[in-house]
């Protein structure tokens, strides 16, 4: 009987603690003066106005968006063939690549970042925009590998047999059955990669920190010169855009299944 109110209390307080920093950041961003106070003194949306109009913020936001978009595309283009070949044909090479693709997330990001730093300086591309995009693309590949595989696992083999018996060639199978069924998982993993790349700091910093200014680099750099509510505003916008993106994924696909829940009740 006791647990009937204990469990919601437990879950509720953890959720509250997890959201607390964001609540404070949101509050701070509404300050009128250039001081960080909580509860905010006065109410103003000026700092949000700054973020979306001043090139000081717009430029790094734009850079980050382009990097994230391209890195996500690369990540998925690497992962999709590997997942498909592993799932459909169990090719050893695909298995090996899959295993290799798991490694970035098993290691502290600093080590990957240093690897990229050394590699790109050896190649002579240190500090270039494309070095950053490729590094992100390769680094994030774990996400689509895992999520697309999860998606493929949900496809019943009998569906493919049924399609074959109705005249579908191997390519037709891929086009008319496999792709439509894993599309939500591809978009889910894309959303993940996108947000991760958007906020990624250490690799961006080590590969192109002094030449390409992404949003996280801009934030860290600004921190050195003191705080302003504009930084709170940009942080809040980051949090909100991530939340909206994930909510959209949940709206169009099964988010719980994408993070690995097998408890199916639909």
């Amino acid at each position: 009987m006791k647990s009937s109110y204990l469990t919601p209390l437990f879950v509720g307080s953890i959720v509250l603690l997890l959201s607390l920093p964001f609540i404070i950041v949101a509050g701070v961003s509404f300050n009128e003066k250039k001081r960080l106070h909580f509860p905010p003194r006065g109410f103003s949306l000026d700092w949000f106005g700054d973020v979306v109009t001043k090139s000081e913020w717009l430029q790094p936001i734009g850079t980050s968006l382009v990097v994230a978009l391209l890195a996500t595309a690369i990540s998925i283009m690497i992962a999709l063939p590997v997942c498909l070949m592993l799932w459909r044909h169990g090719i050893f090479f695909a298995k090996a690549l899959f295993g290799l693709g798991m490694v970035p997330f098993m290691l502290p990001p600093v080590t990957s970042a240093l690897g990229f730093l050394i590699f790109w300086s050896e190649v002579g591309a240190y500090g270039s925009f494309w070095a950053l995009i490729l590094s992100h693309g390769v680094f994030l590949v774990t996400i689509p590998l895992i999520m697309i595989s999860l998606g493929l696992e949900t496809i019943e083999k009998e569906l493919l047999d049924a399609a074959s018996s109705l005249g579908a060639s191997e390519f037709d199978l891929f086009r008319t059955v496999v792709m439509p069924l894993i599309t939500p998982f591809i978009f889910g993993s894309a959303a993940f990669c996108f947000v991760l790349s958007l906020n990624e700091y250490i690799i961006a910093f080590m590969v192109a920190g002094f030449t390409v200014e992404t949003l996280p680099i801009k934030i860290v750099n600004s921190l050195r010169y003191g705080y302003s509510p504009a930084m709170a505003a940009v942080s809040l916008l980051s949090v909100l855009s991530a939340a909206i993106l994930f909510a959209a994924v949940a709206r169009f696909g099964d988010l719980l299944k994408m993070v690995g829940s097998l408890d199916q009740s639909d």
Partner: protein
Amino acid sequence: MTNLHLEGVWKRFGAFEAIRNVNLDLPSGKMITFLGPSGSGKSTLFRLVSGLEQASEGTIRFDGIDVTGLAAHKRNVGMVFQSYALFPHLNVWENIGYGLALRKVPKTQRRARAIELLELIKLPDIADRGITQLSGGQRQRVAIARALAMKPQLFLLDEPLSALDAKLREHMQNELCELQRKLGVTTIVVTHDQREAMTMSDIVVVIDRGAVQQVGSPLDIYRRPATRFVADFIGTSNLLEGTGSPEGKFEFSGGTLKIATPDWLKRDESPAVLCVRPEQLQVMQKADGMPNSLDGQVTLIRDLGAELEVFVRSGDTEFISKEASGVELGFSVGDTVSLQIPETAHLMAA
């Protein structure tokens, strides 16, 4: 209408022989079942026919045309799967029109064909529904409609009714038979349910351990099982091991019986198995001097409502007999009785 011909078909998975030298010649337009216990190879044989698996050896012909090397998508077979395998991302009519869409048939024609099939399966109003909105029985029918949409040469169903509840299953059995008769398409149903095989099919192919045990009409297989396995698997039977002789005698540990000589036993005495179906066996109050009878003791009487099952122990054999319910038996548990074995009991080679 298509007849199906298999010649010397083998299928190996590594060292495992899933199908061993299957030869079949199945007439067109019939309802055929592949019957066998799980792991017997019936599903593998079915997949070989459909083209989802390729034979390791042997030839498969549809209407005399060799299709052996052809993949499933080039064979024009309509298949219904155990899980129905309806595409979750397509609605009902798109599922039915899937094969037509692959062949670039225009949308209006596809839809028209889908509606036509939905009428055939008596579900005219569900064309635009999603798959998740359908009941199990409805899904089953849509799967059937989808398989028939391409006017397949062979209509193949893998355990099609196993996911339905008992009542619906019986209903669908009748409906499936009716549909098959109406269309006249050669149909193969895989099942492990011998009752289903007996009630639905024109021809039963009994499969065990990767080999065909017997092919025949349900009645034929019931009355004259070719092997001990068939006799045991289909229906209940009392099996006695002994020796048969050409002069119409069967000797076993419990005595000698007079039995009509089967064709295979024309020359020498040889080991044989006698198959007596429970309804052939008559249990009577003990009387001496009865021909072709054994003495035994009643161990159990089970009243199943429609009939009675009587268990009798004679020597070291337990016999089962079925008697009509509501009739005065004239004996009870513990009594010594006579078991009357008819001369028409089926004698098989051991």
